[in-house]
């Protein structure tokens, strides 16, 4: 049974009522029973009971989960489907040794010349650097992101290590995260602008190790822990750590403790660190008074997309909305299913491209139906995914980070 023994009790709690069907985007799009928490949980249990093998179909079942956490919200019995899938990924990693996905990925890509050539051309660019940090699975991560901007120089090299302000009221460290550092650099600048305009001194440490989430969610706990320790070594010394990537924020604030739960010696350090980590909008709302400084002449209709890591993992939903609403002349509209996954979901967008695109298409449609001119969110992965979804539909709606909107309303 291996590591599945640890969650066996939870696997057993699933009453097979099927309430997760409505909550699961992969099921909604695919329709097969094993593409929903009930099916996944039953199959994981079947594997634990040695009734089935961990064949490639099984791997697909476990790896196609978005980990969006919506099934857990819907489950009347309190089964947390995404956590069980995580355990199953861990189990797979241990069963199959290293990098099971890279293998299947390479095989899949070889059959699709279009993808492959794109992958290479992308890989040749600066994207390489992002991807290198992700163990084993790298080079397809961005495949879907046709127009993914790639910075020649990472953000962290574009700014001084310490960005000083005249009268610093607070000091923070900025954990940039791979995507903002290498791709959506403008949003990283927006973050700094919002903070500095509010008299916050921002340190951008030269070393920006990956938070470990990508490794963690694919069951490579060893690499994830190594990353976690690197992050804490670099950032542990600051009073407050800000990140503007929902996924990184979730890792730093929450999941790191779960990752290190079996390391009694190190765990307190992790917890202490997590306490000091803030998601951007959370920090701005809690610690700063930026709203009084906002100016804006162009009336704009704005909506907000909740990244999974914000709404379900960290329950941060009101802060970004309130910030958006506080911009003068902005009209805030709520879109249908604002809190449902956009389809990016880490590597799902790469490995299960068709599935992921269908989910993104829903998101794009909901955005368009809302009448918004700008869709704001708090996660660069969502931003890239949503952009491509909107582009495919020929929409002109702009995708921005909450920080971008605030920054452009703060006059120089």
């Amino acid at each position, binding site marked *: 049974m291996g590591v599945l023994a640890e969650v066996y009790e939870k696997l057993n*709690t699933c009453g097979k009522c099927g309430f997760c069907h*409505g909550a699961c985007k992969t099921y909604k799009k695919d*329709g097969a029973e094993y593409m929903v928490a009930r099916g996944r949980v039953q199959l994981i249990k079947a594997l634990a009971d040695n009734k089935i093998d961990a064949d490639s179909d099984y791997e697909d079942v476990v790896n196609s989960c978005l980990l969006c956490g919506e099934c857990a919200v819907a489950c009347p019995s309190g089964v947390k489907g995404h956590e069980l899938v995580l355990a199953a990924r861990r189990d797979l990693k241990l069963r199959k040794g290293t990098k099971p996905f890279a293998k299947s990925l390479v095989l899949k890509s070889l059959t699709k010349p279009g993808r492959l050539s794109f992958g290479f051309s992308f890989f040749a660019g600066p994207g390489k650097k992002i991807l290198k940090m992700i163990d084993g699975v790298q080079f397809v991560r961005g495949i879907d992101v046709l127009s993914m901007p790639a910075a020649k120089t990472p953000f962290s090299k574009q700014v001084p290590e310490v960005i000083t302000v005249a009268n610093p009221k607070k000091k923070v460290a900025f954990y940039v995260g791979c995507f903002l550092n290498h791709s959506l650099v403008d949003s990283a600048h927006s973050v700094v602008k919002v903070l500095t305009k509010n008299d916050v001194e921002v340190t951008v440490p030269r070393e920006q190790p990956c938070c470990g989430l990508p490794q963690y969610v694919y069951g490579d706990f060893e690499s994830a822990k190594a990353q976690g320790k690197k992050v804490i070594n670099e950032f542990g010394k600051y009073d407050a750590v800000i990140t503007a990537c929902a996924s990184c924020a979730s890792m730093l604030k929450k999941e790191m403790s779960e990752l290190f739960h079996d390391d009694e010696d190190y765990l307190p350090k992790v917890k202490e660190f997590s306490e000091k980590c803030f998601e951007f909008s959370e920090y701005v709302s809690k610690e700063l008074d930026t709203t009084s400084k906002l100016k804006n002449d162009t009336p704009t209709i704005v909506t907000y997309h909740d990244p999974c890591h914000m709404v379900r993992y960290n329950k941060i939903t009101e802060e970004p909305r309130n910030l958006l609403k506080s911009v003068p002349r902005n009209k805030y509209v709520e879109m249908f299913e604002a809190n449902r996954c956009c389809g990016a979901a880490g590597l799902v967008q790469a490995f299960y491209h068709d599935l992921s695109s269908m989910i993104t298409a829903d998101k794009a449609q909901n955005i368009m139906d809302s009448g918004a001119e700008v869709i704001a969110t708090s996660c660069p992965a969502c931003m890239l995914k949503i952009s491509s979804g909107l582009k495919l539909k020929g929409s002109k709606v702009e995708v921005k980070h909450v920080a971008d909107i605030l920054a452009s309303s703060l006059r120089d």
Partner: protein
Amino acid sequence: MLSQSVITKLKSICGEKDVITSKIGMYAYGYDGTMLEGSHVGIVFPESTQEVVDLVNFCREQGIAIVPRGAGTNVSGGTLPSDGSIVMNFARMKKLLEIDLENYVAIVEPGVVNWDIQETLAKYGYYYPPDPASWKASTLGGNLGESSGGPKCFKYGVTRDFIYGLEVVLPTGKVIWVGGRDFSSEPMYDLTRILVGSEGTIGFITKAAIRIQPIPEAKRTMLAIFNTPEDASQAVADIVSAGIIPTTLEMMDNLIINTTEDHCGAGNPRDAGALLIIEVDGHPGDLEAQVETIGEVAKKANSKDFKVATSAAEVDKIWLARRVAFGSVARVKPNYGVNDITVPRSNFPKAIAAIEKVKKDFGVTIGTVAHAGDGNLHPLILFDQRNKDEVDSLHAAEMELCRIAIDLEGTISGEHGIGILKKALLPKEFGPVGMDVFKKVKRSFDPQNQFNPGKLIDL
């Protein structure tokens, strides 16, 4: 195992990705909401009526039985695959083909999820009244298969009452339309009605014309707390006697009140014997008087407390406990068996007393939620599926509950259907003549027993 040539043919009918024969596929379609398991040889996902026709014809030639399936949330074993059968999953045939608000009709494919219809209709201020608790998951095809009911059906009726017409593929592979787009299109036998609730044993539904209607202008939600379930059922009877048909009359007993408190702290008193959630809807001007009457009735029935929600948040709060009721019992035992026995309203207190006796006689823990207005009880029997003794007592207790329902002039199934689980009890409810009549029906449609064989009745 299907031969390669059969698989190839199936794929030529409905497409490569719509035929599944993988090991995990076999496992994942082997179960449903029950604890039983079946063993089939393949899964197909038709996406059009023509594909269904071709599949039915091909399987008939090959002598392969077909088990239709929606979301597989039924709790009677209705979608458990029979040996050597093919599961026909309608989950990918899910278009909302037409919404005609002015004429109160929508045409839908069977795989569309009840909730998705509701969400689309709500945009226009309309709804489709049948609302099984499983509505976020269950498909229209499945709702039709079981003629599902829901909390609202006391006032509005169950699935069968909202179906104008159906497109059906028969075991002959022929397609027929029964009924139409309104209530008066049935020539002679009302085939629509015999198909609704037939659990996929006589025809596969490929389209349905459903009745939709405007959402009532206003609604009031009330919560009444009682010392005993008897008091609560007295209140139910008196509300109806006062000439009021609420949309909803949901009851929860003491055990469920406590498990839901453990689960989400809804704020209900743990010492209450029962609570009732009461909802009335209609013209705003009419509701005040109805709420007042219901308040008086509750008082007369010794209610400890009676609350009327004054905001959406309060409505949510009242519903909170009911929503988590089923799952909340997982804290007591990992598994629960749902029953759906139904008795005449006047026998409701007797049914409650009989459930108490079953608890003692079989040494089982039971929590009861009920659609009290229509006498439909859901005694949840708690157990651990890994403990064989508990599973045995569960089965024995469930059989006893069904016997009680029949003795109290009720039925063994108010909304979940017979499937495999309750098949053995059917003769007790219907007697030899009644069973023979069922066989007549099955034989006239499916003499080869090819559609969902072994469900509902054996030929």
